[in-house]
């Protein structure tokens, strides 16, 4: 072959290679973006779906046009079931995003609302989402992209929003995930499965749970509150004002007539002890006060009733569930994976409560879920403080264990 034949040969081989790769990606569709045949043993389980839920969930909204959604972090992604009977609308999609911050939540609400006006939204809030100085924002930065959403932050249609479909076809990462999808089909049923955006996990991802038991998972979670992410907890930084975003979210929901239910996550009491130990309890209380105040002020502005805001974070029968001893890998907790992630069983009770749904086999112990408003907030916070004192006296070892994480 001489040089000029070599130069003619290259584009021919390159085009063939390109076509086969793109065709393969299209067929396997590892992120469930393009639709198309689902073949048993080939691509029926989309095992790569959760590798980038910010992309795949944004696309799923186009395909499923949900009338109701769940917004929140990985807590609600694993805990709030779209097939719960209390929803009374269909379809429901769980649009929660791992490690979401408030801005992302607001943008995904806009996205879903633009594609299909929503009837119901359950918004589950975690304290960490409101930390504007959280360096995790930088981690999310890579997978959170504004231009893939249906509208921009001002609500105007986004011309680039379908870009993902084309770009991912022509991508080496997609090829790797396509191959992964095919090879993982046989073991896929053991892994997490996503149904309408809900992560139906069967076992918890952290391996130590099997060896040191769930208490180790609790400790692993609590430890993260002592790294730098929480050193400067603030609701506002020069580049991010979470209260403003919260207001915009409320305003959008009021104006569009969405039935919004706000939920403060039912995390385990050990997480609240961690917040106390970190020295940011005052911020935690301020957070709830402000959630209530803004909810009411935006409603008043619009001349409408405020949204129901439920606090599940107190000290009650569920949140104080006993944690098995360190090394006890046998005992499985009924309600929790670890301090901040609750199980679907508890999530079902949350939904029962906020939808006022009566399940024949489920009963809610009194004190789980308190509707907050400006009249009861202060007494509510006081009673939590009182309960906290009692809890600390009853569980001195847990308190000491968390205190020891400080160093």
């Amino acid at each position, binding site marked *: 072959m001489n040089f000029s034949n070599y130069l003619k040969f290259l584009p021919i081989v390159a085009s063939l*290679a390109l076509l086969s790769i793109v065709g393969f990606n299209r067929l396997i569709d590892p992120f469930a973006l393009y639709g198309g045949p689902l073949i048993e043993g080939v691509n029926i389980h989309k095992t790569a779906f959760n590798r*980038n839920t910010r992309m795949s969930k944004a696309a799923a909204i186009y395909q499923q046009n949900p009338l109701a959604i769940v917004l929140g972090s990985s807590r609600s992604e694993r805990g709030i079931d779209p097939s719960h009977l209390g929803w009374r609308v269909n379809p429901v999609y769980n649009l929660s995003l791992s490690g979401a911050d408030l801005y992302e939540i607001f943008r995904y609400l806009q996205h879903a609302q633009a594609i299909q006006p929503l009837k119901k939204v359950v918004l589950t809030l975690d304290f960490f989402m409101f930390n504007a100085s959280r360096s995790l924002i930088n*981690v999310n930065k890579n997978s959170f992209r504004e231009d893939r959403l249906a509208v921009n932050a001002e609500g105007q249609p986004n011309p680039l929003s379908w870009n993902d479909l084309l770009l991912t076809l022509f*991508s080496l990462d997609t*090829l790797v995930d396509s191959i992964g999808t095919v090879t993982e089909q046989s073991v896929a049923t053991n892994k997490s499965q996503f149904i309408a955006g809900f992560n139906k996990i069967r076992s918890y991802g952290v391996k*130590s749970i099997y060896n040191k038991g769930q208490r180790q998972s609790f400790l692993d979670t609590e430890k993260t509150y002592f790294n730098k992410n929480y050193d400067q907890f603030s609701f506002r930084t020069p580049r991010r004002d979470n209260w403003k975003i919260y207001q915009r979210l409320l305003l959008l929901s009021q104006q569009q007539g969405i039935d919004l239910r706000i939920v403060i996550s039912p995390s385990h009491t050990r997480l609240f002890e961690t917040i106390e130990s970190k020295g940011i309890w005052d911020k935690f209380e301020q957070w709830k006060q402000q959630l209530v105040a803004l909810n009411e002020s935006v409603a008043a502005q619009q001349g409408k009733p405020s949204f129901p805001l439920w606090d599940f974070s107190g000290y009650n029968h569920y949140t104080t569930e006993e944690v098995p001893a360190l090394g006890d890998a046998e005992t499985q907790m009924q309600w929790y994976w670890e301090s901040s992630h609750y199980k679907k069983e508890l999530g079902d009770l949350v939904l029962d409560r906020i939808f006022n749904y009566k399940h024949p086999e489920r009963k809610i112990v009194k004190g789980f879920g308190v509707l907050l408003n400006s009249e009861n907030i202060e007494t509510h916070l006081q009673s939590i403080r009182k309960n906290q004192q009692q809890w600390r006296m009853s569980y001195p070892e847990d308190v000491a264990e968390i205190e020891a994480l400080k160093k």
Partner: protein
Amino acid sequence: MLFNSYTFIFLFLPIVLLGFHLIGKQGHHRVAIAWLVGASLFFYGWWNPAYLGLMLVSIFFNYGVGVALGGVPKQPNKKPILIFGVIVNLGLLAYFKYANFFVDNLNNITGTNIVLEQIILPLAISFFTFQQIAYLVDAWRGETKEYNFLHYCLFVTFFPQLIAGPIVHHKEMLPQFAKDVVYKLRSKHLAIGLTIFALGLFKKVVLADGIAIYATPVFDAAEAGVMLTFFEAWGGALAYTFQLYFDFSGYSDMAIGIARMFGIRLPLNFNSPYKATSIIEFWRRWHITLSRFLKDYLYIPLGGSRKGKSRRYINLMITMVLGGLWHGAGWTFILWGALHGFYLIINHGWRVIFKGENKTKIGTFSAWVITFIALVVSWVLFRAQSIEGASTIFKSMFGLNGLSVSERLIGKFGGAEEWLLSHGVVFDGFFHNNVFGINPYSGVGWTVALLLISASLPNTQQIMRCYRPAFETYQGEIKRLNYRWLEWRPTKIWGIFTAIIFVLAVLGLTRVSEFLYFQF
């Protein structure tokens, strides 16, 4: 504009190449050069047109000073002109690259509160400053010939080497522009250039970016104060070691390949540095054009090794610390340079003590291992954003955070388990912070694969050796392969190989970036 972008590969490069050869074919060589200069300025201005002016001023100034210095070599009355020229160049670099760093440190030390706006570093300023300082020094020495201004502009701005090197020398470049053969489109150059470019693009996009996802979160976690495990720290440091090499050498390969499509040769910049068995050898293989510059224009003018042993070591240290600072304005870079200065001093001292000893296979292998580990350690300083971040990683790498191994090993050590536990070993998993990528074991796979590639496979220049891909700085440095069939020829097999790696690399430009599960 980056080489690894669709705009560059599918628009800019084909258009510039076509234009250059169409003009050159007509015999309008000056116009063709002007076309290349214009294209290079566009390439530079794509990033931020505001700094185009700065580069042009720098070019005019240095060309003028060069003319003033020309003529009889080393005229004493012209030395002030040289000093003036060098100071202006360094001053410009100092202002744009180091002013913020200097003011921050001044504020820290003296407690003052001088506010200086964040100065944006103009792209490539470090490279074009050095190239032109070399030019001025050589003009004073009388080593430059009568150069045409247009040729000089191209020497500084030629886009393949403009933003990330190789740092070219006027003696290599300028004579090439005067040759007539350059202006004819040759399928030979195109085929060779394209192949080298494809290899470089693959190294950068698939290999470097592929392993980066294992390095970045580890360094980010260290900055956030996460207590890394021993294996996470080493995993992150090793991953970065390979990321940097494949990134930078891939970029150099791309530069060499692109230039070759125009019939221009660039100097070799990387020659399998991780095969080095000493730090001295490493610096003859890593970023060769920079070491060459530092040696010729800093180390030797400082006195080199001509002023006695202790002065030699001092000179080495100064050269390496300034070399470190050249890479970036920060204490981590200064420390990185100092560490390499220290390595080199030990290396030279060792050679003095063990002169004449025979080399054994095991000795060579140990030397390679020690050299490689020393390099991995130094890259931590190079990558970390702060001294605290680096020291967090070092603590874990040197076992100060204990050793955590897999839970599956519980009960596997028999009687030794008690002893291990009492000596700080815990069974919490090799990678329990979840920061060494989403799947740590695939990270281990990547690390091993890239170690094998960089330490045992032939490099781009060896594969392309039959066609003299690059200028050698040290004669004979591109070693002939033992297996001739591995040397590139325009054959079907090589065509298939090149086309496939090119397609994979181009598809790699679209990243479906994964969310890194960072405890939330």
